[in-house]
């Protein structure tokens, strides 16, 4: 098509005989549709259901939605869409294949467990005879103002968190499945925006919560701007935004380049710069150094259940997208991006581990640990082998449950000011309530990658993949940094078990079955994946192939 012809596109109203309606494979998209639909329903509930009933209604809608969505995922997988039937749907916008389904399943389960912790209302003492959860009574009311007191007195609760969470999950479901850059961008925004809001909704320490939200929002928007610019550049390079199309151009299978476009089409500078910017957007989401700095602040400020949800689900989704981008779009550029990712992985592992050593707040500690883990995952990504993909998938599955569980435990340890997150408060916890301390110790050991925990299986899987991929040095550095990391996990254990409990120490709230389920699931997954990971490794192994 010549430039002049293009010009006619919008100068003359050329008669467009017909626009054939896009074909949408609803069945394959079912999980996403269910969740988004439920989210919409949730909003209607907010609008029409009475205050008292909302909580239960929302709970019901959310749980049903997530469970059925998960069922749909299973159905698709059983239908072979994870392997033989894997295909690209919705006019090339979304891929339904092994990795997508595996990650969607993981996200849905994590989300479900996280939603349980959202719904926990037994931790704080009742305010004016109303059960309260971890969220502000009325986000709009100024902290400490009369309106807030009034809201509390009236027993308001921010049940909007459930639809928000659903929207976020919806976006996350699409993110790793996105098969063109536009969908990628939209999905990113769809799950980011609700998270920004959720961060701002903490019941206690609202100033910190709002600050976290602002930082997260500004930086997130900043990064997405970069991502978008990257999208634009890559579009400029390839003339299309579908992964397949770009890949073709990258591989040089497209030859007929219009002389008019010679300076853009196939201009590698555009591709490389754009690709780097898109990578940056994704690395921001996974919290890789040097795009990690939002992580500690946001993790600390956000309501703990939200933190757990973010830490787990966001990472899963983002790594899914990252994998797809690198393995489907840019395999032709492996020799360009691999060294770069090497560097990112190394600094991420080391910085995360080292800075965590001197942390004094349990939530920040876990934030940095999550950064270090991002580094380990990147090591698996760098492997650039099928076993690399499957190992990352497995690691994500293992890691997300541990994270949700760990943050769930954090919600239990409370004092007058809400959660007692300062480490000094945790001294002697093992004496006061051995069980909680033991459970948390299990999670910490899993983070540290001690054998017989899921953490070890995952770490072994990614390092093995990396080594097979010829990244031996990366493995060694990973090993060193996990040695450093071990130091601060152990510090917490020492604190809990070997130091005398403080007189005015925090109390450990007895949670409702909701949180108990969350923690229980966490422990179960940790141990099962630690002792007998074979089944799940197989799962991840079969799921480890992208469709193009």
């Amino acid at each position: 098509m010549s430039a002049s012809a293009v010009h006619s596109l919008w100068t003359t109203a050329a008669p467009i005989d017909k626009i054939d309606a896009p074909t949408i494979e609803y069945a394959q998209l079912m999980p996403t549709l269910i969740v988004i639909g439920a989210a919409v329903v949730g909003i209607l509930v907010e609008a029409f259901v009475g205050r008292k009933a909302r909580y239960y209604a929302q709970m019901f809608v959310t749980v049903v939605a997530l469970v059925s969505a998960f069922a749909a995922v299973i159905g698709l997988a059983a239908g072979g869409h994870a392997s033989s039937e894997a295909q690209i749907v919705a006019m090339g916008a979304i891929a339904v294949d092994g990795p997508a389904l595996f990650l969607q399943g993981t996200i849905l389960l994590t989300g479900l467990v996280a939603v349980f912790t959202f719904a926990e209302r037994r931790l704080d003492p009742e305010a004016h005879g109303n059960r309260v959860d971890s969220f502000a009574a009325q986000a709009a009311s100024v902290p400490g103002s009369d309106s807030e007191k009034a809201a509390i007195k009236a027993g308001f609760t921010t049940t909007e968190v459930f639809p928000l969470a659903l929207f976020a999950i919806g976006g996350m479901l699409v993110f790793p499945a996105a098969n063109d850059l536009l969908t990628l961008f939209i999905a990113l925004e769809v799950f980011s925006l609700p998270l920004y809001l959720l961060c701002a909704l903490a019941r206690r320490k609202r100033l910190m919560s709002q600050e976290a939200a602002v930082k997260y929002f500004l930086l997130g928007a900043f990064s997405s701007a970069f991502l978008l610019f990257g999208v634009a550049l890559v579009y400029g390079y390839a003339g299309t935004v579908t992964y397949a199309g770009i890949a073709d151009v990258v591989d040089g299978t497209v030859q007929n380049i219009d002389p008019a476009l010679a300076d853009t089409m196939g201009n590698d500078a555009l591709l490389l710069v754009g690709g780097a910017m898109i990578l940056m957007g994704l690395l921001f989401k996974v919290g890789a150094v040097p795009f990690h700095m939002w992580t500690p602040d946001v993790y600390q400020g956000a309501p703990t259940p939200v933190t757990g949800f973010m830490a787990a689900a966001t990472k899963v989704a983002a790594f899914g997208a990252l994998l797809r981008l690198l393995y489907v779009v840019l395999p032709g550029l492996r020799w360009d991006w691999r060294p770069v990712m090497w560097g990112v992985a190394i600094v991420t592992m080391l910085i995360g581990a080292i800075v965590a050593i001197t942390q004094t707040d349990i939530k920040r500690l876990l934030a940095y640990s999550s950064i270090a883990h991002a580094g380990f995952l990147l090591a698996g990504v760098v492997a650039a082998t099928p076993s690399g993909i499957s190992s990352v998938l497995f690691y994500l599955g293992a890691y997300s449950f541990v994270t949700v569980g760990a943050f769930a435990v954090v919600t239990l340890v409370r004092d007058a000011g809400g959660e007692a997150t300062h480490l000094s408060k945790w001294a002697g916890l093992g004496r006061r309530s051995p069980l909680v301390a033991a459970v948390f110790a299990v999670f910490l050991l899993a983070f540290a990658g001690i054998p017989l925990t899921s953490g070890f299986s995952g770490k072994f899987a990614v390092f093995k993949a990396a080594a097979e991929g010829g990244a031996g040095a990366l493995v060694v550095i990973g090993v060193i940094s996990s040695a450093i990391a071990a130091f601060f996990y152990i510090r917490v254990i020492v604190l809990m078990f070997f130091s005398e409990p403080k007189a005015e120490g925090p109390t450990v709230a007895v949670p409702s079955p909701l949180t108990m389920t969350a923690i229980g699931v966490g422990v179960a997954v940790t141990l099962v994946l630690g002792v007998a990971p074979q089944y799940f490794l197989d799962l991840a192994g079969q799921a480890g192939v992208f469709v193009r």
Partner: protein
Amino acid sequence: MSPVNYLYLAALLFAIGATGVLIRRNAIVVFMCIELMLNACNLTLVTFSRMHGNLDGQIIAFFTMVVAAAEVVVGLAIIVSLFRSRHSASVDDASLMKL
């Protein structure tokens, strides 16, 4: 003139926006700078769309506008609430959490 110039302009706008984010204190202004960056992206997309002679770029531009609008909604909500509780919209004042 060659459409490539539009690209340079867009890049310039993007850079300006980014710089603004880095140097301005007021959260609103920072946010506006981000909008500017998004718009720079739009310009880029449209230009490329023009050069490639297909509509994808323009479509994306529309999406971007929608997203930007959504961001405004969410962003303003957050910023305003922060402003109300602190009586300041300076991003530097919001530094309770550090180290």
